[in-house]
Every structure is written in C-alpha cells, then in structure tokens.
C-alpha cells in the first residue's frame, strides 16, 4: 500500500473518531433545556443556587460560540446542581422544624 493511502486512511479513522465523540448542537441544546427545566423547578421552590446560574451562563455562552462540547458539559453540571437544590428543598421541607429552638 502506498504511503499516501495509509495516511488518508489514518486521517479518516481519526476524523471519524472525533466526530463520534463530539457533541452535536442538538445534544447540547437538549442538555441545556433539561438544565433550564431543573433550574426552573428550583426557582419554583425558591431555592436556586449561584453555581447553577453560573454553569447555565457558561453553557449558553458556549452554545452561542458554537462550542457544543463545552455547552454540553456545562449544561450537565448545571442540571446536576439544580437537581441537588430541588432535593435540598424537599429534604428541608421535612427537616427544618428539627432545628427550631424548643
């Protein structure tokens, strides 16, 4: 096999691998929508966290810049944080009264 053919084949393999791992715009947008939905739930419970808001901003900025990998990662972090804040609210619904001075 000629060296040029080998090189082209190798490039093709690397390119395919990269494309397979890269997030698509649709994936990033779906992750952002899920994060925003979870944060809206935290907002409804009046318990949003600052780091969630920061991650959402990062995700939105990355989406605008077309960096879908970064957008996906930040959106997933935002969703995880938002879900923790929702969990905290539900937990505190039951626990807050234990802390009352009696």
């Amino acid at each position, binding site marked *: 096999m000629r060296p040029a053919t080998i090189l082209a084949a190798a490039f093709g393999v690397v390119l395919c691998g990269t494309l397979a791992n890269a997030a698509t715009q649709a994936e990033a947008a779906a992750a952002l929508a899920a994060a925003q939905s979870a944060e809206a739930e935290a907002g409804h419970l009046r*318990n*949003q*966290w*600052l780091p969630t808001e920061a991650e959402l901003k990062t995700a939105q900025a990355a989406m605008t810049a077309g960096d879908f990998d970064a957008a996906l990662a930040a959106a997933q972090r935002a969703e995880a944080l938002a879900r*923790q*804040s929702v969990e905290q609210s539900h937990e505190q619904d039951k626990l*807050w009264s234990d802390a*009352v*001075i009696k």
Partner: protein
Amino acid sequence: MRAGHLCRLAFAVAALPGLIGLTHAAAKADPAADQHAFQVYARSQFPAVPLADFGNGPYAVNAPMRKQWEEIMQFPPYDFALDEGKAAFEKPFANGRSYGDCFPNKGIGIRQTFPYFDTATGEVVTLDLAINRCREANGEKPLPYQTGLIASIDAYMAETSRGKPFDIKIPDDPRALAAYQDGKRFFYTRRGQLNFSCASCHVQAAGQRLRGDILAPAFGILAAFPIYRSDWGSMGTIDRRFTSCNSQVRSVPFKPQDKAYRDLEYFLSYMSNGVPITGPGARP
C-alpha cells in the same frame, strides 16, 4: 367483658377530640412560646452578656473585638450617614410634606416598632418599605434598597430610638401568624450549595469564628441596623445583610423587600423583643 370493652371504647372516643386538639395545637404556631425558648437559649449560650448588650452583636460576646470597636466608636464610621439622613428626613418633599408626616410621632423614636403587620393590607411592613411608600405617596421616586440614602434615613430614625427595646406585635390575625411562621421557617431552613440556614451560623455557631469574623447571636442581631460595615466600606440595610448572607452560602438571593425577607425580619425582630435598639451600628 362486653361491658368492659364498651367502656374502653367510650373512653377512647371521649379522648379523641382532646388528642386531635393537642395535635392541632402542636402544629399551630405559638410565637410567645417560641420567643421564650429562643431567648432562654440565647441567654444560656452567653450567660455573662446582659440583655441590653445583645444588640451589640459580636462585640457582646468577644472581648478583643469589643476593645477594637470601642476605639472605632470614638469616631463612628456611620456619622456621615447620620448627618445625611437627618438632613434628608427634615427636608420637605416637593409637595411641602415630609417623612415625619407619614409616621406616628413624626417618625421620631419609633424604630423599635418595625416591622409591623399591617392588618389592612395583610402584609409585613418594614421601616425601609414604609420610607419608600412615604416617598411614593408624596410624589417622590422610591430609593434603592440596601445602601445609600435609604440607609442614611434609616440610620437617623434608628438613632432617635436608641435604648428603646424592640416591641414587635403579632396581631390576632391568621395572616400575621402565617407571616411569622414563614419567617421562622426561612430562618431555620438550610439553603444554597453550602447547605446553611440562618440558624446554622447565628444560633448553632453564634460567638464562634467564621474565618476572621465572629458570628453574632441571632438574638438582638437586627437592633444595630443599619450598619456601617468595614467589609462593605459603606452603610447597609437589613436587605443588604440578608442578600449578602444568602450569596455567601451560594444561594441566589431574593430581591430586596421580597416577602420572604420581610417575614424573616418580622420573625427575627419579634424574637428580639426586649433588646434595645443600638443602631446605627458599626461592624467589621
């Protein structure tokens, strides 16, 4: 045997309303009992601190800090705000009326009665809210909450009330009780990524260090407001303190004068009944 069963059943049925009543009473808010327990706990945490000194926050519970504060108070950092507040308070609005016309006793010596529950509107009214409503009622724009002129006017009004003990009332109105209960719940509810409640710092860790700061006891904590905070380099209202506390635990703070903050102020001030107003204050 049968009669015995019937007898026990009759007793059980007779006792049922009493049990239901007790359950209901346990669920129902009892501000006076809460206040008593709150104050007994604070006094037992700091048995050497006289009641009147609880309005001095960290200086009441830490001797080295108190020494520094006494030095600082030779030239109180809030003096400029006090002068500005007095001038603004006395200056008539464009319509010729003034702040004094909006308040009982012309606004002098009344700080200790705020916040109060307004039975006409069904909401908690803080002093800052009343100041801005006074402005709006007289054709003036409301002032931004948290710092600036509103803190200065607040400072002047607090200064005229120094030494007067907090005297917060909870009227016999289910809406007032609900507001009190919401404030109490907020105070004890953990929030933010750091999972802290107001009580985490100002009850459970009162008097202890948080980095370079000494955490003030919750009992009497609002008596010194507004405060000049060296950390801020300016005056701040209760709203400023609440929003910055929330941010510090990485929680998204509410807007100033949000119902949650007003209810919290209502609860905390009621808990501090009897502690004299010391504001305006100075804090690190």
